[in-house]
């Protein structure tokens, strides 16, 4: 049989299905207790019976993730614009941005929770998610804006473009692909940040997916842990794919990463 593209597409799915079947058989045969490792069918059972509560938890986590991500995009792009306009701001702030980035968020999280207060725990969660997601958004935007062709800059100088015209017509569109790359990284990191934050925030205060995992772990309900974990992966995949879709829609007409094939055929 020939290895056709459609076959290639379903190969990972087939592999995953085979793995699930092997898992089911192995666990049943070896009689591993479900509080150590449940079978896929047991996980599926939990997922279907507790679907609504899990979905509610997922919605909580998703909200925190999206708010943290939006804040990261806004501040990342905003600060990149500020850096490009005022060299002093970059010199002043950049070292501290790096410090914020290299300090493990899990170590700062308790501090933030205390400062923001457990009354506003969601604000603290968003803040923690933002800290994780912010840096790649900033660095990619800065890199994109700095990479503008100097001849292009000269062209805008020649036609006496104002600083705003230069920003809107040249620098932002030219940096847009890098910004999207940053956003794809940031989107995943915002989810990680939100989950880490929930873990640190702990009991009672949060009802997101991470809390479901902790709670199920305390009850040794491993199947429920897996179910929540599965939903977390689904969220992560959805965020990544949505951003990839946005990238494709925005760049398909002009960016070399999407047009190379047509160029080759065209010439």
């Amino acid at each position, binding site marked *: 049989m020939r290895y056709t593209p459609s076959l290639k597409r379903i190969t990972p799915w087939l592999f995953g299905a085979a793995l699930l079947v092997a898992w089911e058989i192995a666990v049943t045969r070896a009689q591993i207790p479900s509080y150590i490792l449940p079978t896929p069918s047991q996980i599926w059972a939990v997922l279907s019976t507790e679907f609504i509560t899990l979905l509610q938890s997922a919605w909580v986590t998703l909200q925190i993730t999206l708010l943290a991500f939006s804040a990261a995009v806004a501040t990342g792009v905003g600060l990149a614009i500020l850096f490009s306009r005022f060299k002093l701001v970059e010199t002043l702030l950049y070292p501290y941005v790096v410090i914020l980035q290299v300090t493990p968020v899990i170590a700062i999280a308790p501090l933030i929770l205390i400062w923001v207060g457990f009354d506003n725990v969601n604000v603290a969660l968003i803040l923690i998610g933002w800290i994780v997601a912010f840096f790649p958004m900033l660095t990619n935007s800065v890199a994109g804006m700095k990479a503008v*062709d100097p*001849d*292009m800059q*000269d*062209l*805008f*100088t*020649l*036609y*006496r*473009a104002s600083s705003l*015209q230069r920003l809107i*017509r*040249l620098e932002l*569109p030219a940096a*847009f692909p890098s910004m999207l790359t940053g956003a794809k990284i940031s989107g995943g990191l915002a989810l990680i940040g939100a989950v880490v934050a929930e873990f640190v925030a702990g009991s009672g205060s949060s009802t997101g997916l991470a809390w479901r995992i902790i709670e199920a772990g305390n009850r040794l309900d491993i199947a429920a842990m897996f179910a929540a974990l599965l939903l977390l992966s689904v969220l992560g995949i959805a965020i990544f794919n949505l951003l990839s879709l946005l990238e494709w829609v925005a760049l398909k*007409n*002009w*960016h*070399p990463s999407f*047009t190379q094939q*047509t*160029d080759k055929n*065209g*010439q």
Partner: protein
Amino acid sequence: MQDTVLSLEDICFTYGAPASSYDAAARAGTLALGPVSQNFRKSEITAIIGPSGCGKSTLLRIIGGLRKPSQGKITGHHDNAKTGFVFQDPTLLAWQNIRDNVCLPMQLAGLSKAEQASRAQKVLELVGLETWQDSMPRQLSGGMKMRVSLARALVGEPNLLLFDEPFAALDELTRNRLDEELRQIIMDRKATGIFVTHSLSESVFLADRILVLSHRPGRIIFELEVEGPDQRDADWRRAPRFHEHCAQLSELMTQDSREFNGGQS
């Protein structure tokens, strides 16, 4: 004698001068260009040739007001809005279609949409790309992109046109054809053209006058008045005079190169 529209007086350009350096010579920076003094005239194309790194591109940018000379002054024509610049690369905005790329200078100047559309139409017809207005730059060949770049430079009806090795990346046939059209366009508009190239034959084909720059620091070591017809086509490329000029320039530049390399060792 035709009227002078632009004159350069003792123009120098110095690269990077670290003020903190202890070495007086380093503090003064590296002289890359000059002093250069020269007049440019209306309805005339001047080619600037010279070895790589001689500062010919820098000189062109100084003339266009894109770089500040370290010394010297420019008098006469110095109105950016009436200057067209064609770079070595087409420098098109990849995310905009051909029409919007050509309209860019007018958009930046805030011209009305109707005015933009009619002027864009006119210059695109001039370069033969009026049917490509809605295409994206990536859909065009290298030569066509260069035509768009030329159209964009012409759209402001400039009286000074500056070219920085614009056709260097194109195949020879395309380049020859564009050179012919370019000369015609500049002559029709009675504009002043300054053309930087490292191709001797291109300079002889296009220009009325050729300035030869030396190795760094670039200075004008020779000025050649090209004895060619006003209308130039393939016949001029075959003319004995054309080849004499080329040979003359080639000899001159080889000699400068030998002196330069001798001085180095």
